[in-house]
């Protein structure tokens, strides 16, 4: 056996466990729920469950609502986290130290507790509204509204995203930045031509994480979201647990999976491009 063949064998053996794991806990459930979702009320197979997703008025508004909340949350999370990461990377001082020490705290607070905290803080009779009332401002409705879900998503996602991005930014050597400055590049030019391209890949990873986390979220949308339209996760639970229509719930789940895989496709494509460029 040649050496390269040996290495190839070893590679295969190493891949098999993770492949099996993936197969059992990801591929099979997806396939099963896809089959389940094709079953119509009469017991036959067709696309009626998917047709319902797009023809039922309430369901359609659920999908639009979910996408809207997800996209808005993603944009705000990425903008805030990236600014935070850039600020932490290129500034110094006591404020930066303080931010660096504290920005991870939300990660360690359980989701349900944080959500109830938000309800107490931002509710109609919450602390914030009581403070604002003193200076004569009435707080708009945040809890039981999409604003509440978005704020909760920010709380849950910003710390981790900022952590990812700041580790990417930390990987950019100072020498590169300094030499760019030496040849006369302005701050904006350094950012757009060096800093952003060098952290672009991590940015994409972060975007994928946030998107998938938000689109499948349940706790916060369930507790602080409106009764209708609902996020897909909440609707899925209702269809499955209350209406007990397993096939319809499977269809929603599979549709959510498709939405996520669109983003996954772009992510993988950029990874593959990168790999081929390297070799």
């Amino acid at each position: 056996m040649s050496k390269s063949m040996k290495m190839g064998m070893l590679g295969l053996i190493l891949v098999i466990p993770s492949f099996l794991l993936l197969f059992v806990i990801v591929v099979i459930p997806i396939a099963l729920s896809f089959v389940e979702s094709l079953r119509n009320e009469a017991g036959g197979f067709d696309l009626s469950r998917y047709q319902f997703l797009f023809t039922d008025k309430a369901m359609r508004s659920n999908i639009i609502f979910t996408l809207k909340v997800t996209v808005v949350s993603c944009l705000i999370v990425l903008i805030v986290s990236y600014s935070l990461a850039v600020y932490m990377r290129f500034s110094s001082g006591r404020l930066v130290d303080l931010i660096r020490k504290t920005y991870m705290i939300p990660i360690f607070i359980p989701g349900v507790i944080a959500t109830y905290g938000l309800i107490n803080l931002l509710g109609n009779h919450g602390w914030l509204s009581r403070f604002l009332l003193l200076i004569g401002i009435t707080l708009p409705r945040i809890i039981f509204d999409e604003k509440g879900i978005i704020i909760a998503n920010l709380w849950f996602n910003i710390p981790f995203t900022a952590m990812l991005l700041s580790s990417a930014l930390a990987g950019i050597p100072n020498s590169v930045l300094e030499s760019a400055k030496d040849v006369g590049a302005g701050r904006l030019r350094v950012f757009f031509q060096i800093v952003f391209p060098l952290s672009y890949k991590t940015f994409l990873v972060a975007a994928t994480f946030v998107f998938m986390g938000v689109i499948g979220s349940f706790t916060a949308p369930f507790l602080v979201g409106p009764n209708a339209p609902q996020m897909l996760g909440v609707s899925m639970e209702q269809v499955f647990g209350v209406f007990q229509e397993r096939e319809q719930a499977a269809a929603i789940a599979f549709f959510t999976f498709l939405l996520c895989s669109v983003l996954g496709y772009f992510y993988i494509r950029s990874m593959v491009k990168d790999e081929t460029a390297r070799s």
Partner: protein
Amino acid sequence: MIQLKKGLTVLSALALTSSILAGCGTKADNANSNANASSADASAPASESSTSPASDKPVEFSFYFTGSQNVKDMWDTLVPKFEEQNKDVKVKLVYIPSGTGAQPTYDRILAAKQAGKGSGDIDLYEDSLSNVTKGGKDDLWDTLSLDSIPNIGKINPKTMENVSNLAVPYRASAVVLAYNSDKVTTPPSTLDELYEWIRNNPEKFAYNDPTTGGAGSSFVTTSIYKDLPDEAIYSTDPAIQKDWDNGFATLKDLGKYVYGKGIYPKKNQGTLDLLANGEVDMITAWSDMVLEQTAKGQLPATTKMKQITPGFNGGPTYLMVPKLSEKKEAVYQFLDYVMSPEAQGVIVEKMHGFPGIELSNMPQEIQDSFKGVSEGFRSFNIGDLDKEITKRWQSEVAAQ
């Protein structure tokens, strides 16, 4: 060499992931094995006592029950008291946390019967009216008589008649109007008066999302069946659905006047929170939750309850003895104890539920605390139509 090292790292990472995943697996299994675990707990002291030199071996029977933590706490208090008085009987408590396995317990009894295996080692079972009726049709429950359980005589005879003596209603709770008596001086006493109050006091009334809790669901069901014949609430016939239109139209219209112009908080607790922080002045709620939270100070002391006529949904929780159980004598002894005023007092204190026996058998102060709310509720028994109501509510009322 480097490659190999890399391989090792990957391998160890894999091992780690799979062990973590395995950990998750056992956690998920926990709920299922819980029943076994708790039965093991319960059987341990029993086997100890059987090896002790006591002459008679006590009869041990298994009692399957489900519910929230407060139900478990209650039985954990009651059973030792019973065992102290009745040395010859041991109760093996098997707690099925709510939402995980009530249906399977029923299915187990049925399956054991069909397989000719007696009662499947389940000697006493607790559930709501729907499973009492269901088990009546499947001929699963033993008919209970006054001779074997004298304390049955303290129960309202009509309640026993409703379930053909197949089950003992040992406690009850009902959905009531809970209101802040500082703000509301004359609470409504009929559904029409309630609608009027809601329209006159915009955003001061809330009921919870009926898909997430019984208090809201009861308000919705009561509204839908308002103008229907009295016996409609016992009908599971889908043909009745066409008569729901009026009720849904009312609910849709009320949407403009309820809290937040159409916000229905999640879970029974969601509306209680709103009442507690003063955002609303009146809600529908379970009587036991209101009593418990007022006692603990989570709700202001000015919180009062009122049942309307015709009443909201409510009803007893029942204990049933599987017909094929081999330890009926011991179970009867236990049931007789549960229905005694002493045990009922514990149930009232622990659960804030209404006693299963008639109030006149209870001490005066307990009678007083239930004034006006312990009667007048109705037991809806509409089977799967419940699901249709929530579905239609979601699409017509919530998403209007």
